[in-house]
C-alpha cells in the first residue's frame, strides 16, 4: 500500500448502492475479481477488495488524492489544479427516482475516481462480451488531485416539483452590457466541474460520468481549460491569463476561513430561504472570448492602463510589488482592476477559479481563446452581479466578449460513504426516497 493510489482497473470495493446499482454490476457480480484471482471464491475476493477501499486517501502532493467527503464540496476552496473539464447537462428523464439513482451512481463513481480508482468493475478483467465499466484512459495515472463538484441550475428547479426549493440567491443572471451569449454554450440543468493536475484525469472523469448518465441526462455543452488563471493559494505566484497579465491577486485563499465564511459558503441561519444549501455555494460560469490578435498589437502602455497593473511584476499602478495595496484613484477610471475591486463594489468579493481555454481557431483563423471564468459566492446578487455591472465601463471590454453564461447552486459536500450528491435537496421533499438519512 502506498499513500498515493494509482488508478487501478480492477474492482476495489463493493458498491454501497449494490441493490439499486446499474444492473450489469449486479449481474456480473465479482466476475472480474474472480478471474483475476484465479480460483478465489467470490466471497474471498470481496474481503480482499474491502480492505483496499477502507483506506480513504489523504490529500497529498501534486499527484495525490483530495478527500471527497466533507462539509463543503471539494473543488471550490481546494488549491486550484492546473486543468479543467467543465460540463453542463440537461436532464431528460422525468422520473424522479431514476434521477436520484443517477445522483447516487454518480456520487459513487466520483468517490472512486477522486481516490484514483476505476469506475465500477474497472476497465479490464471483466466479461469479454461486455464493454468495461471504466473507459480505461486513467489507468496507471495518479489521482492528480482530481476534484468533482456538482451544481444545480435554475432550470432544474422547474422539474421534479422543486420550484419551492429554488433559493432566492440563485437568480437568473440579467443581461449585461456587451453580452453576446451563445445558447449552445449557456445554461444547463446541472453542471459538473472536474479539476485535476492532469488533463487526461479531468477528461476521463467527465467522460465516465456522462456515460453513466446516458438516457437520463445529456451533455448540453462542455469546456476544457488549462493554465489556471486564479490561485487560491496566495503564497504561490499568481498565474497569468492569455493576455499575459496577472489578475485576481486578491482572490480568496482556501485557508482564509473568515473570508470563505463571509463571501463563499452559504450559512444555514442567515440564508434561511434555502436550508438545504447550508455548506454550499453559488457558481457563475462565463466563457469570455478574448480578441487575442488585436490585444497583441496594442501598445504596452495601453495594455497596462487597461488592467491598472504593470505587465512584468503585476504591481498596481504606482506600486512596486504585486501584492501592494492598490491605490485605485491612481488608475484610469475605466481600468479593469479599479472597476473589479471590492472597494468599488461595496465590498463584493468572489472566489475565482478561472482557466484559460483555446479551442483551436475560428473560421477566420483567429485563435478561439479566452478565459473560462468560474466564480463562487454566497449570493449571486451580492457577488457576480454588482461586479459585472460595474465592469460595463471596463476598458478591457474592447478586447473581450462574454459568449457563454451559466449559474448553478452548488450543494453542500458529501459527508460520508452513505451520503450522495444532492441529498439535502432531494431527501425530505415531495416524492423523496427511502434513504435512511432522510428518516
Amino acid at each position, binding site marked *: 500500500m502506498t499513500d498515493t493510489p494509482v488508478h487501478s482497473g480492477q474492482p476495489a470495493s*463493493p458498491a454501497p448502492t*449494490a441493490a439499486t446499482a446499474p*444492473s*450489469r*454490476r*449486479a*449481474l*456480473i*457480480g*465479482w*466476475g472480474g475479481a*474472480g478471474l483475476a484471482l484465479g480460483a478465489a471464491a*467470490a*466471497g474471498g475476493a*470481496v474481503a480482499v477488495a474491502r480492505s483496499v477501499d477502507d483506506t480513504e486517501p489523504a490529500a497529498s502532493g501534486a499527484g495525490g488524492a483530495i478527500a471527497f467527503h466533507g462539509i463543503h464540496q471539494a473543488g471550490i476552496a481546494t488549491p486550484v489544479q492546473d486543468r479543467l473539464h467543465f460540463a453542463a447537462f440537461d436532464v*431528460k428523464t422525468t422520473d424522479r427516482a431514476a434521477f436520484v439513482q443517477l445522483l447516487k451512481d454518480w456520487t459513487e463513481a466520483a468517490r472512486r475516481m477522486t481516490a484514483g480508482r476505476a469506475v465500477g468493475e474497472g476497465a479490464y478483467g471483466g*466479461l*469479454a*462480451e*461486455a*464493454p468495461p465499466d471504466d473507459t480505461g484512459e486513467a489507468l496507471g495515472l495518479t489521482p492528480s488531485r482530481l476534484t468533482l463538484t456538482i451544481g444545480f441550475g435554475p432550470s432544474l428547479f422547474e422539474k421534479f416539483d422543486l420550484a419551492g426549493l429554488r433559493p432566492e440567491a440563485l437568480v437568473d443572471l440579467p443581461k449585461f452590457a456587451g453580452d453576446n451569449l451563445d445558447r449552445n454554450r449557456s445554461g444547463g440543468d446541472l453542471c459538473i466541474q472536474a479539476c485535476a493536475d492532469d488533463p487526461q484525469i479531468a477528461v476521463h472523469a467527465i467522460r465516465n460520468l456522462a*456515460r453513466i448518465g*446516458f*438516457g*437520463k441526462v*445529456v451533455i448540453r455543452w462542455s469546456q476544457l481549460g488549462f493554465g489556471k488563471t486564479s490561485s487560491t493559494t496566495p503564497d504561490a505566484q499568481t498565474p497569468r491569463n492569455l493576455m499575459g497579465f496577472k489578475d485576481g491577486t486578491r482572490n480568496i485563499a482556501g485557508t482564509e476561513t473568515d473570508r470563505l465564511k463571509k463571501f463563499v459558503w452559504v450559512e444555514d441561519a442567515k440564508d434561511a430561504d434555502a436550508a438545504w444549501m447550508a455548506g454550499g455555494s453559488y457558481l457563475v460560469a462565463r466563457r469570455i472570448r478574448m480578441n487575442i490578435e488585436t490585444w497583441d498589437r496594442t501598445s504596452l502602455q495601453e495594455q497596462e492602463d487597461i488592467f491598472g497593473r504593470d505587465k512584468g511584476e503585476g504591481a498596481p499602478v504606482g506600486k512596486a510589488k504585486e501584492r501592494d495595496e492598490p491605490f485605485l484613484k491612481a488608475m484610469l477610471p475605466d481600468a479593469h482592476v479599479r472597476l473589479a475591486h471590492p472597494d468599488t463594489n461595496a465590498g463584493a468579493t468572489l472566489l475565482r477559479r478561472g482557466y484559460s481555454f483555446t479551442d483551436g481557431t475560428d473560421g477566420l483563423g483567429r485563435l478561439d481563446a479566452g478565459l473560462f471564468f468560474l466564480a463562487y459566492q454566497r449570493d449571486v446578487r451580492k457577488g457576480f452581479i454588482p461586479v459585472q455591472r460595474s465592469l460595463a465601463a471596463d476598458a478591457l471590454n474592447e478586447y473581450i466578449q462574454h459568449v457563454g453564461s451559466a449559474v448553478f447552486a452548488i450543494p453542500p459536500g458529501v459527508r460520508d460513504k452513505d451520503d450522495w450528491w444532492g441529498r439535502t435537496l432531494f431527501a425530505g421533499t415531495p416524492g423523496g426516497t427511502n434513504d435512511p438519512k432522510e428518516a
Partner: protein
Amino acid sequence: MRAVRLSVVTAAATAAALAAVTGCTEKSDASSDDHVVEVTATDSKCEVSKKEFPAGHVQLDVTNKGSKVTEVYLLFPDDRIVTERENIGPGTRQKVTAEVKAGDYRIACKPGMKGRGIRQDVTVTGGGKATKRDPRLDAAVASYRQYAQEQADETLPKAKVFADAVKAGDIEAAKKAYATSRIGWERTEPVAESFGDIDPKVDVREDGLEEGQDPEKDWTGWHRLERSLWKDKKLTDRDSELAGRLIEDLTDWQNRVGKAEITPTSMANGAKELLDEVATGKVTGEEERYSHTDLVDFKANVEGAEKSYELLKPVAQENDAALVTELDKQFAALDTLLDTYRKDTTSYDFTSYDKVSEADQKELSDAVNALAEPLSKLAAAVVAKK
C-alpha cells in the same frame, strides 16, 4: 447477493463447434454404410434412412421423387448451413458430403426451392460432443437468420424497381425507389457486413474508397447512384451498368445470408452496431448526403436492432430484468421520437434530413445514446448464466 458467477464458456464453446465443421470433403470414409444417409424427397415429404449417425464424413444420398426441383440442406440447430445442394431435378439423384461433429442437426428438403423446407431432426453421435447451448438461443438465432433471409428476399424486387428506373433514365422514379430499396439492407447490415466483400460494393460512400481507387471507375453501389440522381441530376450508361451490378451484388448477398456466422452474442452486438451506424453516419447526415433520406436508414437500423433484441429478450429478461426494462423504455422513446418525423407510422416517408434543425439533430443523437449505452450490455446479459 452479488456473488453471481458467469458462464463465459458457453458462447465460446459453441463458436468453436461451429467453426470445426467444413462443408465438403474429398476423403472417403463416407463409403462405410454407417455414414450414408438416404434422403428421399417428394413434394410433401423429406424422408431420411436414419436419424442417428456417427460423427465424421457423412454422405447425404438424395433422391428427388417429387415433381418439383428441390434442394437439400444439412443445418445446425440455429439454421446455419453445414452443407447444401441446390437444383435437384425431379427423378434425379445427387450426393452431398460433409464433415460433421457430434451434435444435433436438421436435414431440410425444399421442394420448389422455397420457404423453410420440410425438416427432419437428426443426431450425430460420437466423442467431442459440443456443449449444449440454451435451446432458446438457438431458436433466437434461427429466427434471426430467417429474418435476415426475408429481408434480403424482399429487398431484391425493390432494388430491381430502383435499378430498372435508373436503366430507363427515369430520374424521378429512381429517386422515389431509392430509399425503400435500402430498408432491408439497413435492417440487417451487420449480417451483410460479416461477409466483408459485399458491403464495399453496394453501400460504400465516396470517402470510404481506398487510396488509389478512382471514384469514377471503382465506386459502385447505391451511394454512387444517389450522387448521379441528386447531385449530377443525370443518368448515363455508366449508371445503367452500375444499376445492373448492384442487383448482381445484392443477389450474391441474398444467396449467402443462410451461411452467415450468427451467434446470440453477434446478434446482440449487431443490434448495438446498428445503433452505432446511426450515431456515426445517419445522425450527422453523412450517409445520405445527396438524397437526405437518412431518417429512412435510421428507422431501418433501429428496426433491425429491435428485431435482434426482441428475439434475445426472453433470455436477457431472466439474466438481467432491469436491463430489459431500460431497453424497452429507450426503444419506445426512440421510436416515438422518430414517428414525429413521418406523417403516418406505416409509411417510410420521413422528413428530409436537411430540414431537421441542429437542435432536433441533437435530440435524435441524445436518444440514440440513451438506447445504445444499455444496448451495449445486451451481449453480456445473453451469455450470463445464473
